[in-house]
């Protein structure tokens, strides 16, 4: 399909006659205007749609938690408080991996 053929296709399609508005179209719209804003029809959303909608919030919440944990770890390390991994090492050395075994 070359450019010239595509242009001819567009040119032909441009000539199509659109449907004529029904005679009472304006009156119908005016009636809808007077009724006020129509209630939005509930749209059924799939699980993926819902995840898509929630993704930015979930990503923000997860990022906040990660940043808070990093800041907390940095702060506690700087303050000299033993970290969780130190506690685990101590526990395993004292209780689990003693020379006498379990």
């Amino acid at each position, binding site marked *: 399909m070359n450019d010239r053929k595509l242009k001819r*296709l567009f040119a032909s399609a441009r*000539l*199509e006659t659109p449907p004529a508005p029904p005679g009472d179209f*304006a009156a119908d*719209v005016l009636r809808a205007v*007077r009724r006020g804003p129509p209630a939005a029809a509930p749209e059924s959303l799939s699980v993926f749609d819902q995840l898509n909608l929630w993704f930015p919030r979930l990503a923000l919440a997860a990022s906040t938690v990660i940043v808070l944990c990093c800041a907390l770890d940095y702060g506690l390390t700087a303050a000299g408080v033993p970290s969780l991994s130190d506690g685990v090492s101590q526990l395993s050395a004292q209780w689990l991996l003693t020379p006498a075994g379990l």
Partner: protein
Amino acid sequence: MAENRNREFAQPAGQNLNSTETASNDAELLERIRGGATDDFAELIRRHQSRVFAILHRYERDAHKVEDLAQETFLKAWRALGQFDGRAPFEHWLSRIAARVALDHLRKEKRRQNEIGLPELGDDALDWLRSDDEKSELDARSAAELLELAMRELSPADRVVITMQELEGRSVKEIAAVMGASGVAVRVRAMRARSKLRQALEKIAKEKL
């Protein structure tokens, strides 16, 4: 050439007023509507309904759906009348609303696309598509049906850009205003969309053999 095309699209068929007169009359009508004359909105609808139907028909071939979309367009215009500042003609502002309604409609339809069967193409369209004859012509209806089928391969945004540019003769600036994008982004999108459309047409020609 482009200017002629724009002139052709600027005035809807059957409208006798020139654009300056229409704009001035629209301004008077809008003034009265804002003053509380709700009934005058019907006159505004009657003036512009053909144009709105023509725009929406480029995106939806079902006449009933076109009517629903046209109603949605005018309702949105009604609710947003306070935001219309009158710097551009009302017709342009309304056309932008119609294009956005069409874009939303295409996005919803895209989600349901797998559930909807593809429209049947006539033999004329397929013969024309496969023909190497540079001078063969295709009737308007078949051309529109063929484009509709090929455009289903495009994203809704690509489709709006290519339709506004090629079928409605809109400027890049107008398309950018509807899409909320820069002129450069619109040009790039239009170029890619045209390429995808060409591929889709080639695919149709091969698949339907």
